[in-house]
């Protein structure tokens, strides 16, 4: 039932009514023609009904707090409660973004230090914390590349190169920044085709967007040659930080030759996913792009006080990306996470994420699954292809994913990257125990068996959830996007 279906005229949560004595509707008479006469159309329910309704709704969700979530490229690690708690301290929670500097030193000190930590782990020269999600971070990065070439007076560089396995945000972002996208093929081993890249770069190349490890779940071994190729042609190299968890504390994008990057704090720095957001996508740059950073950033004066750096300080900035200064509450959680982990903890992240992924890959291979790149090391994630199962048992990756839900596991990422057919992209993260991973392997082994002996069980899964498979064709054809109340 919808909250609207609980609604009854005259029901109310009286404790929430704030009208002090003497505040009568006549006080709005000065609004004249501006006054609203139509009903607001919100539900009318009691407080207990609200609490019960949303508590019950919450129990219909899968969540990291409840189950293993091996979603490739999403880094579903534990979201530390301690980070949430400190971000919610009243002094932080109630601070207005436009408060004077004298009343902002607490927040600013955390933001400033976070900028330094992020520079350190990525090997970059400067950081802006303002982009509010990975996609916005990408936008900032590509916009800075554009600003850099324009400032040099080079207006011919209209192309951005993207590996064909790249995440959809990459080409979408390039187009949003006014570029034309050119795809570079990926080899059978999962690396960017260096020869094809060499043929594609030239005076029209503004830059190459990629990630390392790549979306194929393997390390781009020729990254230094790739960087050289792009730089020699006069282009810049952009790092999509989605897979930073694999190398956190072990390898730095700046050392690999990247000029600009974005990070996904909601992945690598364990900030909560909240059912779809918020994220946070800070950007880091080398010296060449530092003049173009999105504002505001945080600076420190000689006397140790912190202040905002804006257009006056960074005159060639690409500009402002958010009404205020980014997802501050998320930045505080990331700061807390960095303090809890410390430098040694950061090292461990890359190590144990990689250990878990390799162990899981090997275990699944022993259970009969086909790895997409069996000769390569897994990084923090790896790909399994179900092409054979699809062909012989007519059971698809989608079916396996749905059946996993019945076993109490959230499915891995499916059908990405597009170039591996019927694939599952699997990322356990470092916060999962061996026991949890073994349980997942047992479930996958069972499902593989089911696919061979009783495939209907898999192709019609899930069976144990609040709903069975949903008709998404109907959802797109007969659009029902808001509840229509019959008056």
């Amino acid at each position, binding site marked *: 039932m919808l909250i609207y279906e609980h609604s009854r005229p005259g029901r109310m949560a009286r404790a929430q009514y704030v009208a002090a004595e003497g505040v009568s509707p006549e006080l709005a008479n000065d609004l004249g023609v501006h006054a609203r006469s139509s009903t607001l159309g919100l539900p009318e329910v009691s407080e207990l009904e609200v609490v019960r309704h949303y508590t019950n709704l919450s129990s219909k969700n899968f969540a990291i707090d409840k189950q293993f979530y091996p979603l490739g490229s999403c880094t579903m690690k534990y979201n530390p409660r301690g980070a949430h708690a400190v971000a919610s301290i009243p002094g932080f929670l109630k601070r207005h973004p436009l408060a004077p500097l004298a009343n902002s030193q607490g927040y600013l000190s955390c933001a400033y230090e976070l900028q330094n930590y992020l520079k350190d782990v990525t090997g970059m020269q400067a950081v802006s914390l303002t982009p509010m999600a990975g996609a916005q971070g990408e936008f900032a990065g590509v916009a800075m590349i554009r600003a850099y070439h324009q400032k040099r007076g080079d207006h011919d560089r209209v192309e951005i190169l993207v590996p064909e396995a790249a995440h959809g945000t990459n080409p979408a972002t390039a187009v949003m920044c006014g570029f034309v996208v050119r795809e570079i093929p990926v080899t059978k081993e999962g690396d960017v085709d260096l020869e094809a890249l060499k043929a594609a770069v030239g005076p029209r190349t503004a830059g190459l967007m990629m990630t390392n490890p790549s979306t194929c779940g393997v390390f781009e071994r020729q990254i230094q040659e790739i960087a050289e190729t792009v730089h020699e042609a006069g282009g810049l190299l952009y790092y999509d930080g989605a897979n930073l968890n694999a190398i956190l504390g072990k390898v730095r994008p700046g050392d690999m030759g990247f000029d600009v990057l974005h990070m996904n704090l909601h992945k690598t720095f364990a900030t909560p996913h909240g059912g779809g957001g918020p994220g946070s996508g800070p950007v880091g740059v080398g010296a060449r792009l530092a003049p173009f950073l999105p504002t505001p950033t945080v600076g420190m004066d000689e006397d140790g006080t912190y202040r905002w750096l804006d257009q006056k300080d960074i005159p060639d900035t690409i500009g402002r990306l958010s009404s205020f200064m980014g997802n501050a509450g998320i930045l505080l959680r990331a700061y807390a996470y960095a303090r809890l982990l410390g430098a040694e903890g950061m090292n461990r992240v890359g190590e144990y994420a990689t250990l878990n992924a390799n162990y899981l890959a090997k275990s699944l291979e022993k259970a009969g699954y086909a790895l997409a790149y069996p000769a390569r090391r897994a990084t923090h994630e790896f790909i399994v292809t179900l092409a054979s199962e699809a062909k012989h048992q007519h059971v698809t990756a989608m079916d396996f994913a749905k059946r996993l839900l019945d076993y109490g596991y959230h499915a891995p990422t499916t059908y990405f990257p597009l170039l591996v057919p019927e694939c599952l992209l699997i990322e356990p993260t470092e916060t999962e125990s061996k026991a949890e991973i073994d349980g997942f392997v047992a479930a996958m082994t069972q499902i593989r068996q089911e696919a061979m002996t009783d495939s209907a069980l898999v192709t019609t899964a899930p069976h144990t959830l609040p709903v069975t498979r949903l008709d998404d064709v109907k959802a797109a*054809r007969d659009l029902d996007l808001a509840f229509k109340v019959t008056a």
Partner: protein
Amino acid sequence: MAETRDNVRYLASHEWARLEADGTVTVGISDHAQDALGDVVFVELPEIGRTVQVGEEVAVVESVKAASDIYAPVAGTIIGFNDVLDAAPETVNEAPFDGGWFFKLQPADDKALNELLTPADYRALCAADDH
């Protein structure tokens, strides 16, 4: 094996174009295309009177898993579109060569259709695709 029709020409991007008796050209997508797309949920069609160049994006066909652009096979002026698709987009899946047509145009050059793929060429293309 997907159905092909012999009274039409094809584009490599899987549109078909049929020269009608009155010299107009009807355009739609092939059986191979509708199968690859899956259930069609929406079709965005061009306005009548619009002039288009060959290869210009003229329409969009949307399924749950993809949204594909439809290109003008020849240059000309749009003179009609299939308004059945608004309420019944599934017609594209059910009858891609017949009731599921997208739009009609008045070609600038009535010989232009000869530049397109023949049914045999198109069948060969699809066979290669299926591997």
